[in-house]
């Protein structure tokens, strides 16, 4: 094992790790986890979502798992499956799958660099979730390193499987709090020829209505994102070529070829260098307009609405941050409104000055059950303790 010789260790939610390690093999990682030296273990892949979550319980050890979880991808094109070590990046995986004309349609922010394990641990989708759903929807099986150093698996590597409890769904989105993903079997899809088109609407409602028409007309957009611009709303939609003529006939807006950077701009919105505060809201379709208006009232630098996925994301730069009381009040009101419908608001990036005012997750109604999950798989609270919902 090598202790990374970085000049200054990266901060996790404003706190400094006592030590940063990078185990070179799965065995080394396993020994490290089994050691139980009293420190909280904070696993990290490429760190594309490093800012997510609360402060880890101190003292903590930052564990770069990429070296330990590197290895070969096994791709079975005829089965539409692949098995990959969790440390592989989505970029590497995509290159491998592309060789056989296939893909894993997951595109979270900075997808090329993000590790497969990290993407599943965070559980967040990108623009493609409009058509393809969340990372968890592609997982066929998983092996996980539990807090006591045991490697345990669930699922398998076939595309249809109900053998045993679906622990994969529990592991996805658990932010490494109940185990570190070591290996994953995924379902993959054929690559398709698509075209990205851009359109403008005056109001958000018009953009939403266009999205609804496209869906109802069975156009099956791969993605459809709306972003706020000075003049109104700009949309980007990805369609198969065969769907374009019909899309043009019902769009009630001009569809023009999208610029090269447009897709990446919506995919990575909120995760750029200057983005200090980023929030993501999941809410019912009927609440998208009011949610967006409430957020716009806080003067964000960018606002994104993913209407068919019922998602709103907004980001603020250092210079445009709302003050702590204002943001805390607005987030509190939004969360209270979502409590009934069951959505959620996650603050994906929080600047240090707002950390005290803003709970990154909010408290789910069934928090007790979630605490029971943590207790069942990590009773001593060693993995990422403090960072997840309710400080789990």
């Amino acid at each position, binding site marked *: 094992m090598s202790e990374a010789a970085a000049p200054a260790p990266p901060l996790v939610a404003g706190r400094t790790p006592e030590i940063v390690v990078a185990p070179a093999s799965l065995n080394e990682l396993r020994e490290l986890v089994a050691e139980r030296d009293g420190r909280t273990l904070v696993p990290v892949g490429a760190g594309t979502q490093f800012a997510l979550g609360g402060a880890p319980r101190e003292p903590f050890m930052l564990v770069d798992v990429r070296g330990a979880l590197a290895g070969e991808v096994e791709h079975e094109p005829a089965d539409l499956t692949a098995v990959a070590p969790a440390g592989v990046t989505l970029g590497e995986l995509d290159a491998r799958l592309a060789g056989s004309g296939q893909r894993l349609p997951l595109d979270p922010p900075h997808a090329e660099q993000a590790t497969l394990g990290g993407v599943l641990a965070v559980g967040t989708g990108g623009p493609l979730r409009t058509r393809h759903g969340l990372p968890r929807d592609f997982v066929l099986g998983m092996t996980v390193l539990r807090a006591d150093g045991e490697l345990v698996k669930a699922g398998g590597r076939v595309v*249809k*499987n109900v053998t045993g409890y679906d622990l994969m769904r*529990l592991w*996805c989105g658990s932010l490494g709090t109940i185990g570190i993903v070591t290996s994953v079997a995924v379902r993959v899809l*054929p690559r398709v020829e698509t075209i990205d088109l851009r359109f403008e609407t005056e109001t958000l409602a018009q953009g939403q209505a266009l999205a609804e028409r496209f869906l109802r007309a069975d156009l099956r957009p791969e993605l459809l994102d709306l972003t706020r611009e000075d003049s109104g709303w700009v949309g980007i939609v990805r369609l198969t070529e065969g769907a374009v003529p019909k899309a043009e006939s019902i769009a009630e807006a001009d569809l023009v070829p999208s610029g090269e950077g447009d897709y990446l701009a919506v995919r990575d919105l909120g995760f750029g260098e200057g983005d200090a505060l980023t929030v993501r809201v999941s809410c019912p379709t009927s609440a998208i307009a009011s949610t967006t208006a409430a957020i716009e009232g806080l003067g964000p630098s960018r606002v994104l609405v993913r209407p068919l996925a019922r998602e709103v994301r907004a980001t603020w730069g250092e210079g445009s941050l709302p003050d702590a009381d204002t943001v805390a009040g607005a987030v509190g009101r939004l969360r209270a409104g*979502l409590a009934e419908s069951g959505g959620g608001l996650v603050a994906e990036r929080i600047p240090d000055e707002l950390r005290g005012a803003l709970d990154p997750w*909010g408290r789910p109604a069934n928090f007790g059950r979630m605490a029971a999950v943590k207790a069942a798989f990590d009773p001593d609270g060693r993995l990422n303790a403090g960072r*997840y919902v309710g400080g789990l």
Partner: protein
Amino acid sequence: MSAELLKALRDVVGREHVLHKPEDLLVYELDGTIDRSLPDAVVFPANTEEVQGVVRACNALDVPVTPRGAGTGLSGGAVPTRQGVVLATARMRRILDVDPIERTATVEPGVANIRLSEIAAEHGLFYAPDPSSQKACTIGGNVAENAGGPHCLALGVTTNHVIGMEVVTASGEVEWLGSHGPEPTGYDLRGLFIGSEGTLGIATKVVVRLVPVPETVVTLLAIFDDVESASETVSAVIGAGLVPAALEMMDTVTLQAAEAGLRCGYPPDAGAVLLIELDGIDEVVRGQVTQARAACNEHGATEIRTATEPAERELLWKGRKGAIGALGRIAPNYYLLDGVVPRSKLVETMGEVARIGEGYGFPVANVFHAGDGNLHPCLLFDEREEGATARVLEAGAEIMRICVDAGGALTGEHGVGFEKNRFMAWLYSEEDLENMRRVRGIFGNEGGFNPCKVLPEGTGCGEMAHQEGALAAAGPDAYV
């Protein structure tokens, strides 16, 4: 049954909603599988509060509870293995809400799967998972089993379409897992609960996602001389980048039975039939149909039938949907299996399955979801023959073993239940199984809630599968 239990149950649901006389209980001793066990009582709660009351009363008296929907399950999930109380959802059949804006419906667990698509139709929507038992099976049972169906290839299974449930947990608490539409924050307890085979609790309200009805649907029925050619066609279709809505295959034994019983017009020497369904907008589907037809022709299809109108498509599906029932013409009983192998191992595995059937002297009919590699071999036998039941179960176990050895799984959509829990160790280590067992504790199941299902149990679960004369359940109304 103790007078104390009977009184407690009657206090919760009312006298007329508790069955306890042996003659009334008979129907509830089995589901669609071979195993059976008579409950002490069957209760029919009307709402969440009553479900909670029943669960709490049983927990207080240490009586096992086994949830039951329509009893169409095919792995023994609704069989009250340790007797006790069967909690049936038959009275909980209300449609609570249909929301065309959010594209969701909220229903009680006893609502039949097909009702969802019926109520959604007026909004141009439908509910995608379509188990072949969909006219009878309930959404609560679908949640328990994470049910699939022929059309799950492109659209996914129950867990992809149920976004939230109100549940009564094994410990008797009422709680929402997931939500009405948007994605809640925290662990995906919804995803964990779906497919837990009724061992963690009972869903009392279910919110499903509805999807737009496709603009154009084209069904192709292609006839081949043998299973190999049909399988190569499946690979070619997938290789061409198509993900059809359904991709189903039947072998010659099944075809002959279907032809004799249903008159589908299959040639007498047909070796395999492939059903390919494509959907989407007209402009796109037309091109896909051309590609699919080319794949069929290249791999030796002797005939291709095409249908676009609902009634015509229904006709092409007729043989597939009625196939299992038609097998009754060949033998009085059948044992229907559910295994999965990697798609590329289909032909090889089917050869093995045929060899096992021959070894035991049982004809094997195959109907399967070829696109998923989800096999449904059907062993044909006569339970009146001495020892036939025991031998058919042995043959079934061998077939499961070859699925596992091929890199597959024990079940693609029927569940592990009581039928296969003793095979779990073929796939998972002791530590894996112990890890799965922890899930029960999270929902307060200390062993009495749907006991003896999913995970292998040590003692107290009997050897029902080998009981003499424990058969007959698998009648012509079983589904696949």
